[in-house]
Structures are given as structure tokens and as C-alpha cells.
């Protein structure tokens, strides 16, 4: 199967564009708020913001079906919001409160939702890749046509376990879509300084896994590529690789002084390739919405985010008994 670079050619509707706009804006405003709460000392530890990469997860969720699974790294807030997890529960986890998705025990990097088929939130670079492959194994085992979206970064793409996973996934034709979010840096290391072959969509070649490079700042291009991948994978043809060319605007985590790139480089992407501005332009040009309507959406999103922040501040700290709970499962279960 050939590796390809996709060319965006799409059709869409006002309704879809408005939904994309809303979802991407929710992620961005949520992350900005998280950054503020971190600055105020309400969020601690590591906090990795998704600002700039919103189109990737929003475009792919548009092709997900009931029962599809997703798993990612520590840069996970966007993925959770996009698959429909409650912003209140996510923000309260960031502040380490009882109302958080992990009751305050996991924090920014470790959140899960069985209900939304979100399998985390993993702090060890690359570890989610074989785990995502295992989620797909379970779908194949059960004989359904669900797929697993396994997200990882350009830096993670150099971990050995990624290639062990690729081999098994192709060998056993597992229904997994590997989404490489190539935001061009792994902490302070540019892709070209860490990867002998920086065209990451070709990384499945040796295993015969098809790969596509996609403009990850264009939500429609992402959606289309996702559709092709999902169709292929659901048809039982094995795994598929999508390399999303994207960009993170903020530092790696809150404590990254980001001296490895220039301010101008960031500003240029923001000005020329911003995913939200792009959809905004499509909405206005296509007369799917006017400025007033967009303002209205902005206001709604701001309210949702403020409400989440409010909840996250008011929610109590976990009860001390939580220190000792959830270490072991209560019942000894078997396979369903």
C-alpha cells in the first residue's frame, strides 16, 4: 500500500463548520483558562496545553462512531473535550478536586472515561501506542467494526515500542489508526534533530502500513483523511498511519522557556495557519454565519469555560480516604 501526501479537497456544510468552530474554540478557551489557573497556583505539576493543535482531534472525532476508542499522551485535554467529556470534570481534575474525572488522583496527564471510550491520558512517552494497539486487538477479538484512534507525538515516534506495535498491528490486521501529531517539537528538540527520517508518515513502510501526511491545521483535510483511514481500517485491512502536521503555540509545558524557537516562528503560524481562523473565514466567506453569530458562539463558549473553572475551584479536595482507595479492584472479574 502506497504512502501518500493528501491534498485537501472537501465539501462541507454550514452546520458542520459551525460545529467545528464551536469545538475548536472550546478547546482553545479551555486551555487558556487552564493556563491562567496554573499561573494562579490552582493547577500544579505539569500542564501541557493543546493550543494550536485543535483541528487534529476535532476533525478526527467527526469520523468516529459509537464504540470507537481513543487514547493519547499527557497532552490530553483537547482529546477529552472533543470526545464529549464534561469540561467541568476535566477542569476539576486539573485542580485536583473530588469532582474531577479521576477524583483528583490523576491530574492533567492521567484522565480516563469509560463512558466516552477515552483510555487516557499517559505520562510515559510512547506507552500509549501498544496500549492503543491492544484496545484494537480487543475489538478484533470481539469481531465488531470499531476502530481505535491512537495518538502520539513526533518525539514519541522514535520510541521502540511504536515499531513493535506497528509490526503486531499489521501482522494481526488490527483496527487501529495511528495518529502522529507532528507539532514539530518534542520538548525543545525539533523533529529534524531527533529523526533520521522526519517524514513520519513513511514510518510504517517497512511493515506495509499505509501512511498519509495531512495538513493538521485544516480541520476539513483532517476529517477527510480520517474518513479514508477509518474506512480502510473498518474494512478489516489492518492499521493506518496519519501524520498530522500541526504546531503547538505554547511551551511544551507551563515551565518551558521555549528558547529553541523564535517568537516570530510562532507568530507566523498563528497568523497564517491558525485552524480556528481558517474555519472562521470559511464561515464568513460562505455566509454560513455573520460576525454577530460568531460573537454569540464566542460568548457561549466563554460561559461554558467559566462555569468549568468555577466548578473546578469550588469542588472540594478529595476525601483523605481516597489516598487508600482504587489501588485494587474490588471484584475479581473475568472476560465479558
Amino acid at each position, binding site marked *: 500500500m502506497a504512502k501518500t501526501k493528501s491534498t485537501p479537497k472537501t465539501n462541507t456544510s454550514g452546520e458542520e463548520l459551525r460545529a467545528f468552530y464551536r469545538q475548536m474554540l472550546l478547546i482553545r478557551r479551555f486551555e487558556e483558562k487552564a493556563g491562567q489557573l496554573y*499561573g*494562579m497556583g490552582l493547577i*500544579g505539576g505539569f500542564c501541557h496545553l493543546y493550543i494550536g493543535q485543535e483541528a487534529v482531534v476535532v476533525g478526527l472525532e467527526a469520523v468516529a462512531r459509537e464504540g470507537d476508542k481513543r487514547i493519547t499522551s499527557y497532552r490530553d485535554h483537547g482529546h477529552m473535550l472533543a470526545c464529549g467529556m464534561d469540561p467541568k470534570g476535566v477542569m476539576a481534575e486539573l485542580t485536583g*478536586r473530588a469532582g474531577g474525572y479521576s*477524583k483528583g488522583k*490523576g491530574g492533567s496527564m492521567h484522565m480516563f472515561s469509560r463512558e466516552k471510550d477515552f483510555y487516557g491520558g499517559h505520562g510515559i512517552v*510512547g506507552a500509549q501506542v501498544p496500549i492503543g494497539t491492544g484496545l484494537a486487538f480487543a475489538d478484533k477479538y470481539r469481531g465488531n467494526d470499531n476502530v481505535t484512534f491512537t495518538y502520539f507525538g513526533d518525539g514519541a515516534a522514535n520510541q521502540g515500542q511504536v515499531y513493535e506495535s506497528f509490526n503486531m498491528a499489521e501482522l494481526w490486521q488490527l483496527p487501529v489508526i495511528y495518529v502522529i501529531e507532528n507539532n514539530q517539537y518534542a520538548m525543545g*528538540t525539533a523533529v529534524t534533530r531527533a529523526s533520521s527520517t522526519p517524514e513520519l508518515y513513511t514510518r510504517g513502510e517497512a511493515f506495509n502500513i499505509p501512511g498519509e501526511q495531512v495538513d493538521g491545521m485544516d480541520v476539513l483535510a483532517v476529517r477527510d483523511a480520517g474518513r479514508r483511514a477509518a474506512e480502510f481500517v473498518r474494512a478489516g485491512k489492518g492499521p493506518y498511519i496519519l501524520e498530522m502536521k500541526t504546531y503547538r503555540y505554547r511551551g511544551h509545558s507551563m515551565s518551558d522557556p521555549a528558547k529553541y524557537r523564535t517568537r516570530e516562528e510562532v507568530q507566523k503560524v498563528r497568523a497564517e495557519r491558525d485552524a480556528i481562523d481558517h474555519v472562521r473565514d470559511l464561515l464568513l466567506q460562505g455566509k454560513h454565519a455573520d460576525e454577530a453569530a460568531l460573537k454569540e458562539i464566542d460568548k457561549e463558549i466563554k460561559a461554558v469555560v467559566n462555569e468549568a473553572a468555577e466548578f473546578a475551584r469550588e469542588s472540594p479536595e478529595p476525601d483523605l480516604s*481516597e489516598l487508600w482507595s482504587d*489501588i485494587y479492584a474490588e471484584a475479581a472479574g473475568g472476560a465479558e
Partner: protein
Amino acid sequence: MMATEILMPALSPTMEEGKLAKWLVKEGDKVAAGDILAEIETDKAVMEFEAVEDGVIGKLLVPEGAEGVAVSTPIALLLEEGESVDAASAPAPAPASTAPAPAPQESSAASAAPAAPEAPDDPQIPPGTEMRQTTVREALRDAMAEEMRRDEGVFLMGEEVAQYQGAYKVSQGLLDEFGARRVIDTPITEMGFAGLGVGAAFAGLRPVVEFMTFNFAMQAIDHIINSAAKTLYMSGGQMPCPIVFRGANGAAARVAAQHSQDYAAWYAHVPGLWVAQPYSAADAKGLLKSAIRSDNPVVFLENELMYGEAFEVPALDDYTIPFGKARIWREGTDVTLVSFGIGMKWALQAADALAGQGISAEVIDLRTLRPMDTATVIKSVQKTNRCVTVEEGWPVASIGNHISAVLMAEAFDWLDAPVLNVTGKDVPMPYAANLERHALVTAQEVVEAARAVAYR
């Protein structure tokens, strides 16, 4: 809407105060969300601080250059366009913001940590040697730099060690001095570069492999144990592996279960490895130099929370500390406290508190866990007849368990009470602030254990 106070931000997990290094805006400037307002120096780096909202800078409340500005101190007022400073400050003349300049000094004086406990005399330091206040971070860097100058075969490899100057700034300046041949940024491939380091060591080089933190060394533990620790034995003595695996170990602050673990007991378990976990800067330096010179594979466990702590380090050209020699930090007669690494902080604090309660504690820093200087511990217990061990790791199969067993076997007749082990709680590290506090060891727990064994 009225003026918003811009507060001194927390810009790292461990930051409590910072320096307002530079204002990049002045009063009256219009700013948009995302514009850089100031450069702020944290405990690790100089960071740019961005506006989160649009507005006009009404007033700068903290002058450029102010040091020790506590997190959450108001540093500027942001106005809506058209609003005036007077109007803005009228409704809420926050008392905290009226005297911003003296406030930071006050807070830094108040929070100035009690000076690091003075280290006991070291016979290896000739009398009259100049002592320099040095942070653990600098001491580690100096040790590597000295050994790299001394031996062309020594090189440093790891994630972000070169251009970024180290994720925790431990390798600051090394790339400049030694160049990219000897200070090498790796991809994120721990198992790969740990194994590669082992190969280079077999071939006669002396790699120092940095793990950004030891949590990530779990990706590479097979090479540390199966390849590095066992090969000398398996080769009938032909194939030594002179390598150092170093990096931050243990809990940092609020980084949750996957990033907060103490591996002391794990590595101490393994024959063929040497394991160090220093507490003071002088020990960090002297032990790291010895580690690099050793023909054995060494696991060198540092601690992020200790990197910024300053201690006296002798200004000697070549200050090394042997493995397998504990250091007695404080002499005492009633109970022996044994610890290592950051655990020494709680042990020493506890000893202070115990002194106030009339209990005289002897405090021993093991410094290295393999080889371990149990002789010094036994000798101390023969005097005090009581022992409490202190460590951050989990209780099961801990270093404390081992010391208890050694004392039972070799000092049974001298013990007047069971040996107690103070450890981290037997749970994965939680993220929530209140739970994390309870998961970690406290000096108070050490005090209670010491009183229990002293029957007081």
C-alpha cells in the same frame, strides 16, 4: 468591568517566588491576549509571561529587577480600554498592592530557608580549605565537567542535555565547553540509548547517560540490569561496564503517579550495580566523580527538589568521595536515624525537633545504597540501641527493611526496641495537593517513630 490585577504567575511546578527580570510593556501600553508582558526568572529559567486578556496597562505595581516576588502577588493593573487608573484602583485599593516593592523582600526574608545544616568535618578535606556555597545542580555539573576535562572517554548523552542545557538545567554550559561530539542530545528512545551506552562502555568509553527522570529509565531497565550489571560476571571478568546512569529520582511536586517514584530499593537490589543517592551538594559532586571513574555500572539517583539547594562544597581540584562510606551528620545518643537522599531533610528536621523534646538523635546519611555502609549503622546502634530508617520509597522490600534485617542479624543484642521504617505510603502517588501531602514522608512521622522506639 473594572481593572484586573495581573498576578505574579507560577511558572513551574516548584516555583514559589521569582524575579521580575524585565518589563516588556509600560504604563499606558495597549496589549492583546498573547502579548508578552514581562520576563520572569523562576527557579529554573527565564520565562516570558503573556497577557491572557486584552486591555491597557494601567499601572506596574512591581518594579523591574524586584527579586523574591511571591507567586500571586499583584504585579500590574490591566484596564479596559478608556478606563483610568484612578477609577480602577478606587474601588479596590488592595492592601497587598500598595507597597509592592518592600513586600517581596519581606517575603523572601521570611521564607529564607534555614541555612542548610552544616556538614560534619570530613577527613578528606584539609583544614583551611575554602568552602563555597554551591547548589546540588551546580555540583553535579561541575563533577561532570571536571571528569570530562580529565578523561577524553567521558561523554554525556540524554534527552535535552545539550542545546536545551538539560531539562532541569543540570548540564548547563557543557555543550559550550565540550561540543556536540561529547554532549549529545538523543531522541526519546531510552531503551535504545541506554543500550547504546552499554555498548560504548564495553568498547572502553565512559558514558554518562542522563535520564530526564528515573521514571523514564523503566523503559531502559533491562539494559541497566541485564546488560550493564550482569555482563562482568557472565564474561568471567572480561567485560566491565564503566557507565553512569543518572537523573532525577523520586517525587517532584504534583506530577502524579507515573512521574513520582523512588527507585532506590529497586536498584539497590541488583548485584553488579553501584547505587548512589546523595543528599548534599558536596556528596553529589564527590560521588559523581567517583561514579564516573568507577569501572562498575553506577545508578546515580538525584532529586529534582534538591537541585536548587545550596551547601558548602570544598574548593578542591579533585574532591572525590568513596562509595560505601556513610556520613554521620549529627551525633546523638538516644536513637539512630538512618536515611539518604531527600530523606535526610526529614531526618535532620526530625533530629532538631527531637532535641527540643530531650531526645538526642544520631543522623546517618548512607550516601550509597550499594555498596552500603551497614557497619557505621551497626556501630551507631550499639551506642543508641534504637533505630529508625527514613526513605521516600514504598514500604515493602524497602531499604529500611534491609537495614532492619541486618540489625536483627548483627546487632540483635544491642536493640532495645524494634527498628521502625518510615516510608512513603503504600499507594501510587496521587495528584491532589492534600492527598500528595499525606502520601509523602514528613518530619513529624519521623519524630513520632523516634519517640515510639525511645518509649517516650
